[in-house]
């Protein structure tokens, strides 16, 4: 058993709000420099760059596990993270999400590019759907969609004043079966995590990086046999009402 560092919420330049510098090789290099062992790629409503980041990590200077992920925007404009064992599962959820989105327009393009990359960081395409807006899935349906594809569903940055369960719905719906809640790393610094203990769910944190310089600013410290999806998720599941990070 060994302690590992995991930053489970990083955007690529496919997310319109993320910087163009967020290419697969640049993200991998920044993660290794921050001594991260595990990262998850979670773009808004798509998993289109996950495979490229995984491939970039395979040829990197140090071992780095890249977990396929997504950050779905529900109908209520709540962000929900899905983490998966396979790229195929993440892509399936992404495809279901994107199908409900409107097409990109000339105006929406002004608010951020949506680049698809290969492993070397070359642009190989652009996403045609407006990834920044809400899907048609309710919160409950979104969690169902993630879990139905074998994923792990985490409520994004629950302490934040926008796009969180608390900001959009005011309270935590008991009928929604989350596997965990994410506290923003800023929230961790401010001690906001203690407000969410009563939910009795595992508490994670992450960098929610949109810039390279943010990678590794928030991360989990977790003891595992190996840095795999299965090991990590079962370790997190055992942390009901507890922090998977050093506050």
């Amino acid at each position, binding site marked *: 058993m060994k302690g590992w560092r995991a930053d489970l919420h990083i955007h690529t330049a496919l997310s319109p709000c993320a910087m163009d510098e967020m290419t697969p090789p640049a993200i991998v290099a920044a993660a290794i420099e921050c001594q991260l062992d595990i990262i998850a790629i979670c773009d808004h409503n798509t998993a289109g760059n996950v495979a490229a980041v995984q491939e970039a990590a395979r040829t990197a200077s140090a071992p780095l596990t890249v977990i396929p992920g997504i950050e779905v925007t529900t109908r209520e*404009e709540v962000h929900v993270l899905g983490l998966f064992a396979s790229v195929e599962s993440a892509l399936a959820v992404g495809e279901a999400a994107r199908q409900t989105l409107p097409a990109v327009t000339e*105006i929406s393009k002004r608010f951020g590019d949506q680049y698809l990359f290969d492993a070397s960081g070359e642009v190989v395409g652009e996403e045609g759907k407006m990834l920044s807006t809400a899907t048609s899935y309710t919160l409950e349906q979104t969690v169902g969609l993630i879990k139905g594809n074998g994923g792990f569903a985490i409520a994004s940055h629950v302490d934040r004043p*926008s796009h969180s369960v608390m900001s959009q719905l005011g309270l935590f719906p008991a009928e929604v079966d989350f596997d965990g809640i994410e506290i923003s790393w800023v929230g961790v610094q401010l001690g906001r995590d203690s407000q969410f203990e009563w939910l009795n769910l595992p508490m994670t944190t992450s960098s929610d990086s949109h810039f390279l310089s943010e990678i590794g600013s928030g991360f989990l410290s977790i003891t595992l046999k190996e840095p795999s999806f299965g090991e990590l998720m079962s370790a997190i599941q055992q942390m009901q009402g507890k922090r998977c990070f050093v506050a």
Partner: protein
Amino acid sequence: MNLRELTERVGAVNLIPEVGLTEATIERGYASDLLSDVLASAPSGGVLVTIQVHMNVIAVAVHAGLAAVIFASDRRPDEDVRQRAVEEGIALFASSDSAFDIVGKLYALGVRGPLA
């Protein structure tokens, strides 16, 4: 009634004095905090009343062709949001009134919702 007159009568503060206000008559408005709903339904050339101060409000306002956004309940956007509105030429106002009261005042001044 134009935007300057309308917002003065409502008692909303101009957050972007550096951007000139349109002289066009404001006839329509919308009130919503769900940005996907604003994107789908807000009337072009109209005014939006919302408590959402996220950056995405500006993108949605540009997309919907809104003339102005009035932030209710004393909510103020961050400076980067304000700067983006300057760049995009979206007028921003703030009021300590609730969205309900702002909309009531706008309605009394002749502003109506989107055409059905």
